[in-house]
């Protein structure tokens, strides 16, 4: 954990444009789909690793998925801007369209974070950037029964 619990200006302070440029990916899980072979990707990318196609379209990934593996983050190495959060659970989630992402699962107790847990996207504040602006993005939370039913119906 950094000695600076509040974000301070550091040797590398980036423009918020860098975050803004990724807003679709960070807010709505928009990745890429190859126009040629329909391979799916997250995060977005400029070419297809499967067919070498260079025409990629925006693709909104599934907003629900299943935990493949998760662990409680070691608090000693929290990054700046994340030090004051309660226990964080870092997971790899397999989205319902087959893509995998690494994400924090929130609103959950340690005993619930296990392979097979059904989760859905929630929008949360991430942290303050080193330039002082707030940064937002996706996290995942366990699906409530109603959401679970909705997700099942959509499939």
């Amino acid at each position: 954990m950094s000695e600076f619990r509040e974000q301070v200006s550091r040797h590398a302070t980036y423009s918020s444009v860098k975050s803004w440029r990724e807003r679709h990916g960070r807010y709505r899980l928009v990745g890429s789909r190859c126009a040629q072979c329909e391979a799916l990707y997250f995060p977005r990318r400029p070419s297809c690793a499967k067919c070498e196609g260079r025409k990629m379209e925006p693709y909104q990934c599934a907003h629900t998925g299943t935990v493949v593996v998760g662990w409680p983050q070691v608090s000693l190495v929290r990054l700046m801007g994340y030090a004051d959060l309660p226990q964080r659970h870092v997971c790899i989630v397999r989205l319902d369209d087959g893509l995998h992402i690494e994400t924090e699962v929130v609103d959950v107790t340690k005993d619930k974070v296990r392979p097979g847990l059904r989760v859905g996207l929630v929008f949360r504040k991430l942290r303050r950037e080193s330039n002082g602006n707030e940064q937002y993005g996706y996290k995942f939370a366990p699906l409530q029964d109603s959401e679970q039913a909705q997700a099942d119906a959509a499939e």
Partner: protein
Amino acid sequence: MERRVSIIGTGITKHVAYDVDRSWKEMLAEAVFEALDDCGLKPTELQGGVVAYHGEAMLDTGNIGPLIADTVGMEPAGVTGISVACAGGAVALYHGYALVASGLCDAVLVAGFEKGSELYEYVETIGNSSESDYDYNFGLTHLDWLGLITLRYQQKYEMPDWESVVNWIEDRHWFARRHPKSFYYGQAMPSRRDLQRNMMHWAAARADGAAAVILTTEALAKRLRKPAVYLDGLGFSCASAYLPHRFHHAWQNPEADIADSELTRTAADRAYRMAGLKDVGEINLLEISDGSPGVTFVELEALGLYPRGGAWKGVLEGAHGLTGRYPTNTHGGSIAFGHASGAAALVSVIEAVAQMRGEAGERQISGPVTTSLCQASGGSNSNNTVMVLRRE
């Protein structure tokens, strides 16, 4: 025609938590001068260099090539600085090999170092050596990768407990206490209970340190004082640095999983073919990345020593200690020798050279060590190298 390349000189600094008295240049110079003295060459005889570090932000200094050429007295030779996460030292060796093999240079410096203690925001600075817009910016760290890989391995292969992991750590600490330059040298051996309970033992011991080797041609190596060790096989593979991609490129390989190291398999295949290594059982010594024990198990399998999910059983049976079937990381590995990012993979190679020359003291493997295998991985298993070393 490609020339055979030999490692003829090696040097390492004592790895410590914080080298307060010295700058990174002084630390690196110690390793380089030790390597030059080891082979009897002068700095001005070096015709090129490749040096790995974690990146400009780590030092508050970029453009390190000219600084190094000047510091060690090898100017006007061209030196290239590279940043390849924890595999940096091995990747520097890969490129240094190319300089000699191609005929561009006859004698080359390959080095790596890290001085992370100087930086308050150390974890921030290593944290973004990945798909940082989608992991570092979300507060996800390297330790998360190591933890997720280890847990996934344990769950997928139904490891009944953590005893194999503790075995791995205990062996590495035993070796490190027999290497005067290791992080833990001179300290009491931790108890089995300490190793089981203190999670700080489950990951690499971050350290300040530097390592250097000198490469040259077979013809020059044979004129020098120590037995030549040859780099006979090399493989280097890269893929996405976003950890979940170890899964979702599954359309390429249905077996793809973070509990496997597909890139190491690719690099190993190339290195084995290049070296004409027919059977991995021919090796006498193994040096591999052990940022965490779970990652180690994955690499052991990818190198072909075990089927998928089988490594933990071999570790549990003692196959990787001094008298085991495959003595491994006999310097103590990143877990106990200490882990200086740019240097770590080179420290492994230097240990292999020491064993092949019979200079490893209390750590020396019984019997001749004629073939060694060195593997390194860095940055969420996104840069992987495999090298086969031989002694005649």
